[in-house]
């Protein structure tokens, strides 16, 4: 991010906002769709423990087949996880900072936010584990889709009424439509947002 900052500042802001907005829309709505389908009972709920055990078993199997002094598989697996999870933060930093010469402050803000969230996660991870996973994903999907909507519109040259505040009504609309979709698609004997 810091290395590419000066280059990003040369790209017109609207192009960056459009690109990041569309990617956030794709990312957020994909996530929201899955959360809706899970809440409706169309696809099974994500079992994090099972996913962890499966991934661990695959890595152990690969480790047995590769006897090298440096564990490339572990390094690549860690790299993959960090890059995939960090991409969202990079998008936000680019959209906020590029074009205005604010990439460095935005990057510092992202690092501070990351530290804060990690600290908060450590402090409240027990209460958070009691929140159903799909509810969290539902909420994150709505937030990402709303931000994506805002930035895509800004990138296209739409001046939203109320500027940034319009993200809140966007989120409410995404929530209402998602809940309606859950009700329309729900299989019998399923609770909402389980």
């Amino acid at each position, binding site marked *: 991010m810091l290395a590419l900052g000066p280059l990003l500042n040369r790209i017109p802001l609207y192009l960056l906002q459009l690109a990041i907005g569309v990617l956030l829309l794709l990312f957020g709505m994909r996530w929201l769709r899955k959360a809706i389908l899970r809440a409706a009972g169309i696809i099974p709920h994500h079992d994090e423990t099972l996913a962890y055990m499966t991934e661990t078993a695959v890595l152990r199997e690969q480790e047995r087949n590769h006897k090298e002094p440096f564990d490339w598989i572990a390094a690549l697996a860690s790299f993959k996880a960090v890059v995939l999870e960090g991409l969202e933060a990079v998008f936000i930093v680019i959209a906020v900072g590029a074009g205005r010469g604010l990439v460095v402050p935005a990057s510092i803000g992202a690092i501070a936010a990351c530290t804060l969230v990690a600290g908060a996660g450590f402090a409240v991870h027990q209460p958070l584990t009691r929140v159903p996973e799909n509810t969290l994903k539902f909420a994150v999907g709505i937030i990402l889709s709303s931000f994506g909507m805002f930035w895509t519109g800004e990138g296209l040259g739409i001046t939203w009424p109320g500027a940034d505040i319009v993200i809140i009504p966007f989120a409410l609309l995404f929530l209402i439509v998602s809940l309606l*979709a859950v009700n329309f698609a729900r299989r019998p004997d399923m609770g909402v947002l389980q």
Partner: protein
Amino acid sequence: MNTLIDFFHQLAGLFVDDASLALEILAIVVLAALLIFLMPSQPLAAGAILLFGCLGVLFVNVVRAA
């Protein structure tokens, strides 16, 4: 090599899971952009197309998947 391929596969999967949803979202964005190009004095009309188009696409996609 397989791990790298898997990585790029997962990277693409971040944005595209259901291809029809991704294509429909992109089509709505293109439609909104066309509307702004054709009617630059009415940007909010394009905004409405973008917002309600994406909401509609999401709803229809979910109902179709059910």
